[in-house]
């Protein structure tokens, strides 16, 4: 096989080497950070200075601009973890478990933010800080799943062994999430209180959609940036563990 007939490497193969991955993606971090900051600033400006209050909900609709992106991100990150879990188990991609591990704390925080902002939104609009409606309840369960996954990672000494176990748990969780959502919705419609707690928000004229979309992208890019940095840290952390093990055994790096 000469250089000419050697098969062309796909990008995911090029990125499979952890060291390569870190060096190739490091230049992306600064631009991503700037983009995130710009989008956040823009989104905040629109949210507070350039969008109307809702005719039904008043100014509290502005909470939606942080609530909806948080909730979206909490689901999206779990989806990314599920794909990474498949990458670990099915395709054995070396960086899939790094991605999966880096994502978990981020997803947990987004879920917590979604719950908190939802609670802040609920209090003025529907009179209570917490309501056991379908969406809030499912999000709460999602938080428990995230925290369980983080605890599972920490319970293993050997993170490489942990990777596949966490992956299968993540997948089982992913399969169960629709079931949980369905059952929680069924349950909450049975126990429907007098007030209907709808986190959908108002019908959306363009002036409200704009800050929503901007914040949506701002949050997404924040997540991507943090995910990247966290992945670099995890790669380095594993390198540290290897070097420490070697040092203990008295070998040279």
């Amino acid at each position: 096989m000469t250089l000419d007939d050697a098969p062309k490497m796909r990008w995911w193969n090029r990125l499979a080497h952890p060291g390569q991955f870190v060096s190739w993606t490091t230049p992306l971090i600064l631009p991503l950070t700037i983009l995130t900051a710009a989008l956040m600033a823009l989104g905040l400006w629109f949210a507070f200075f350039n969008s109307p209050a809702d005719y039904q909900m008043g100014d509290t609709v502005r909470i939606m601009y942080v609530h909806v992106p948080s909730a979206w991100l909490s689901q999206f990150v779990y989806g990314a973890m599920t794909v990474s879990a498949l990458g670990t188990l099915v395709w054995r991609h070396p960086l899939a478990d790094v991605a999966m591990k880096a994502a978990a704390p981020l997803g947990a925080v987004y879920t917590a933010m979604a719950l908190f902002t939802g609670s802040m939104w609920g209090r003025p609009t529907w009179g209570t800080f917490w309501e056991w409606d379908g969406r809030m309840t499912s999000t709460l369960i999602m938080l428990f799943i995230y925290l369980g996954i983080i605890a599972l990672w920490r319970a293993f000494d050997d993170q490489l062994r942990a990777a596949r176990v966490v992956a299968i748990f993540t997948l089982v969780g992913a399969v169960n999430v629709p079931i949980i959502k369905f059952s929680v919705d069924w349950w909450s419609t049975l126990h429907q209180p007098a007030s209907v707690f709808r986190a959908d928000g108002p019908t959306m004229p363009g002036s409200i959609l704009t800050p929503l979309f901007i914040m949506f992208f701002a949050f997404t890019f924040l997540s991507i940036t943090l995910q990247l940095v966290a992945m670099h840290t995890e790669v380095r952390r594993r390198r540290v563990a290897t070097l420490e093990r070697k040092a203990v055994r008295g070998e040279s790096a």
Partner: protein
Amino acid sequence: MSGFLGIVRRDLRLALTGGGEMMTLLLFFVIVGAITPFAVGPDQALLARIAPGIVWIAAFLAMLLGLDRLLRPDREDGTLALYRLADLPMAAIIAAKVIVYWLTSALPLIVASPFLALILAMDAEAFWRTMVSLLLGTPALAAFGTFGAAVTVAIRRGGLLAPILIAPLCVPVLIFGVGAIAPMGGPDQAQAAMLLLAALSLMAVALAPFAAALAIDWGEE
């Protein structure tokens, strides 16, 4: 088949002769139900209303209690390593364990449920539905529980973590389990809940052994 039955017989013998753990589980179930009136007051109407939930919570907690003896003793004495090398597929071994787990943890609870129904002021109608609901739903709890035990078997003190991992997965079982006894929406809801519960159990029992087998293999490597 003989290997499968062999595992069933072995685990049954271990559970039944090994120091009265079944009795402990049973007592725990009854005690959780029995202390409820002390916590919420002896008002019959209130107790009757929350009884289905209490019974299911007690069942869930009791089954969590039985989790640690499912796989950890096998790992500690080396049996798990032998199982991994055996001809019988790991999934089949786990399936055998799920069955024994159900027989030794859930069945006693179902048998003890009349007593709970009595002290929690359930009427006869609700009581029968409770029995059926437990019968249909505890297999799912057993399956999810076994999966949780398998994921945490290789971890020191994993027994503390397993309930946390299992609880979110078991929420639908609790929802449909209670819904099958005392639905707010009327009798057809009970029917729907029963069917959903049965479906959940079937699915969980069918798939959990495979997921658990993978978790054990990968945790050990």
